[in-house]
Every structure is written in C-alpha cells, then in structure tokens.
C-alpha cells in the first residue's frame, strides 16, 4: 500500500522515523514528562503512563511551565526525548528545546507544524517518517 503523505511546515528541520503517539490535549513537560524514563507523568493528561521516548509525539501545543524546554533538553541529553514533535502551530517552547539541544549536544529533533485538518487525521500507532522538508509519510 502506498504511503499517505501529510504536508507539514518545518519549524525546526530534521529527519525522524517512529511510531505516532497522538493527543489532542496540550502538555507541559515540566510536571508532565519524566526525562529519566521518557514517560508522560501528568495525571491530568490522557496519555499519563505512556512512554513517548523515541516516538513521534503529536501534541497541539505546549502549556504550563516555562521549564518545559529545560525538561526536553534533559531528555535529549538522556536519550529519552520524542523522535519528533508535531504540533498545530509553531510552538516556540518545543522549537527552542530542539535548537538548544543542537547547540549544546549536536542533537536536535524535528518540530513540524501541521494544519488543523492534517493534525486531526493523525492516529497513534501508525509508522511515520518525517522528512527534512516537513513532509510526513504515514506507512
């Protein structure tokens, strides 16, 4: 079967491949993500208890703490960050974490903004390939 192609705009460019983990609720990584395990820990969030490390996390936008970026930087350093983050707008928190991870450790992750319809079409469990152009292939 042919790949489904999903158009995206690269906020931070990069390539990634992994299993989609999709939520329609915003997330604060501080108080919401354990960088030692790569698990979502926010007890108010529907994905609590789910491991996002190495997966392609689709979350509409960041909320809550400014320390979201620092938690994500720790996660990149510890190897427990999502492989890519897909959002509905150019989320400055996720973008900054990726840019600083690049500066500090030469490791960044793609941050891709999707149109609302494209974001709504994503499903957890599907295999996604994120291309440098922002194009996403769904297997």
């Amino acid at each position: 079967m042919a790949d489904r192609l999903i158009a995206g705009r690269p906020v931070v460019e990069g390539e990634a491949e992994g299993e989609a983990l999709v939520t329609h609720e915003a997330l604060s990584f501080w108080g919401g993500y354990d960088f030692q395990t790569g698990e979502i820990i926010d007890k108010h969030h529907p994905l609590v208890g789910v491991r996002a490390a190495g997966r392609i996390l689709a979350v509409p936008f960041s909320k809550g703490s400014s320390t979201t970026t620092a938690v994500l930087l720790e996660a990149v350093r510890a190897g427990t960050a999502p492989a890519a983050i897909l959002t509905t707008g150019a989320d400055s928190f996720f973008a900054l974490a990726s840019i600083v991870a690049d500066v500090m450790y030469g490791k960044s992750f793609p941050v891709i903004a999707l149109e609302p319809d494209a974001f709504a079409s994503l499903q957890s469990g599907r295999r996604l390939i994120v291309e440098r152009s922002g194009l996403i292939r769904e297997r």
Partner: protein
Amino acid sequence: MLQLSDRDRAMLNGDHGPAPQLAMSILVRMADVYGAGELMDISQAHIDSTMYLGDATLEFAERLASLGARVAVPTSLNVSGVDECGWKDWAVSPEWAAKAARQMLAYEKMGAVPTWTCAPYQTQMRPSFGQQIAWGESNAIAFANSVIGARTERYPDLLDICCAITARVPAVGLHVTENRAGQMLLRLIDVPLALQQDDQFFAVLGHLVGKLAGDLIPVIDGVAVQPAEDHLKAFAAAVASSGRVALFHIVGVTPEAPTLDAAFQRRAPQQTLDITATDLRGARSELTTADGRELDMVILGSPHFSLAEFRNLAPLVAGQHTDPRVRFLITSSRLMKEMAAEAGVLAPIVEFGAQITLDTCILASPMLPPEIKTLMTNSAKYAYYAPSLLNTRVTFGSLADCVRSAIEGRVVRDDSLWQTA
C-alpha cells in the same frame, strides 16, 4: 525575512565576545520560529532557567558563565533547586544540593540580582506598565502582562537568559499592542458575590479559565469584586498551570481592560463561553485528588508567600500549635521572610510550628521525605503539579482550612459556600 541591526550583527559575528554570540545565534534562530521581521530592545529580564533539573540545565548555565556571559539589563532570578541554608533538614541529597548551588553561582556570575523567587513582581524588580521585558516562569509572565501591563512573550527557560545577555527579543507577540487584544470572552453568570469574595475564588477561576482558553487570550467579564494582589497572583499561577495563558484581562480589574470594549481593542471575540457556579464547583473539586482525612503536610507559597500573606496568616495561627503529626511548610523568598520578621508577623507563625523554605519550593527541590504522601494547600499551582511531580495526594482549601487542618491533625474544610453555590 529577519532584518538585524548593526549591533545585532556585531553580536552574531562575535564582536561582543563569545557569550553574546552564542545567545544571539539562538535568538536569531528563534526569531525565525516566531516569524519576526526584526528584534527589539527590552529593559528587564527574569530568568527561569535557574532551576536545576539535571546535568543539561547545569551544563547550559556553566557554558554561558564560562564564556563570560553578563546580563545587559536588570535581571531577576527565579527559584533555584535548593535552599542553600535549609536543605540538610530535608531529603535533598548532597550531590543534588552541590549541583543546584553550582547552577545558582553560574547565574549570579552573569550579574543577575539574586532574588531567587517565582514572584519577582513582588520585589524591587517589579516592572512598570508598558515596559518591554523578557520574563520566564509561567505565573510571573501571566502576572507581569496581565496585572501590571508590562509586555513579555511567554519566554521559556534557556531563551530568557539569551534575551537578558543581548537585551533583545523578537519583535512579535505580546510585545506588540494589537496582539494583546482579548480573543475569548468568558462571562460569569449568576456567580454569587459571597463566592467571589471567598479566599479560594480566584485560584479556582484561574484553574477553570486555563482549561477553557486553549491558546487564546481570555477576557473575564462579570467579576464584581476588587481582588487583592495575592488573589490575582493565585489566578495567574492557576491559569498558567492548567493552561498556556500568558495574558488575561479581567474587565474592571486589570489595566488593559477598563471596559469590555477596551479588553478586545474593539474587536469581536472569536469565542464566547459562560461560567456558572456549577462550573466553578467542578473546577474546585478537580484540585483535590486526596480522599479521606489523612494529612501529612500543609504547604503554602506557590507562588512564593508574600508579606501580605504572612500578615494574613499570623493572626490565624497566633497562640496555637500544629498537631505533631502534621508538618506546616511555607515556601518564600529571603526578602519576604526578612520583611515578615521586621513586621513582627513571622514570630507567631514560627511559634505555631511552621517551617520556612527559601529560594526554592517542594516542586523544584527534591526535599520531601517519602513518608509525606498527603498534602493540603491553598495554592492551585501546588494542587495541579504535586500529584504528578511528587506522587502525592492533595486537598485544596482556603488558608483558614489549611490552618484548622494543621491544628486538628486531619483534613477539615468549610465547604458551605461551595456546596450551596
């Protein structure tokens, strides 16, 4: 396309040294993310990157400090990861304390004012109406923008310090008048005055508004009381925990909302929702995750306890004592503790059995021993984050409920207003 000034370009080229070069290189990449056409000046900053989380936050701070970074504008510092004087009384490991102290030192070396507080707007570093600033810390961002009318984007950790070193920010978002207009109208409908006057009202309303607002700027209409500053502080902390709100307007209360029309800059709301007493009752019960009466600790002070809050607490506890089974902890700043002592309101609180932790809080420092499993607080921010970050159960209540529970050694709440609401 980003147009840099000559000074921006000189920083980017390294003419001002390696630290401004690094900071400007991050800022330029972020200007692209924000879609900014140019950078603009700021005259103050508040740094949230101070909180030690692990090796990465420390390495980032020490990298900047080792490059000789200096802040270029008056800069305050948020909470750290350790109470330098008090950590040994708690479960903090010596390794954590040492690394958190190194991170504090790195930011002090950059020339920032060691305020070590998440309520910098209650210090001498309070900005003024219309002032362009770069602030981190979600509650402080919401307070500065909304209650003071200073102008900051929602700056994340690690970017706040880059803004302070360069004194520049992308000229977008909440720095620009037209982007500060309300977008969503939230109308209080038949919310009784007695409920609005309750000590818990603004924290609960903030928790609810944060959940409703999504990524829009909310305007709250129908508030019939003039809240104390600490009630607006509680609102700002709650709205920025349950949501992503960096600016809110309360009609007749906050400075950019003398009227409904002014709050929306004469535009139409994108969305309108009603808030009833039933909605507020639901929001209040979400803040309580404990059941039963067990209580290990009362925790106050997120954001950091102010002088006015010390003043309110003192008469409630004077001449009484906590139950020996319950710890009573207040998190605050060095400045507020000194001011409370000078005002004579600290002594009765300490005699009551309260402990005070400075420069940090229970969420930012791994200080609580594992036997502390049930908390009670009047802070919606503590109530929101403690269950996830500390794996504790929390009861949310008024300041008076917290005091009474500490004395009785079990959770007691006067819910009469909220049940009939």
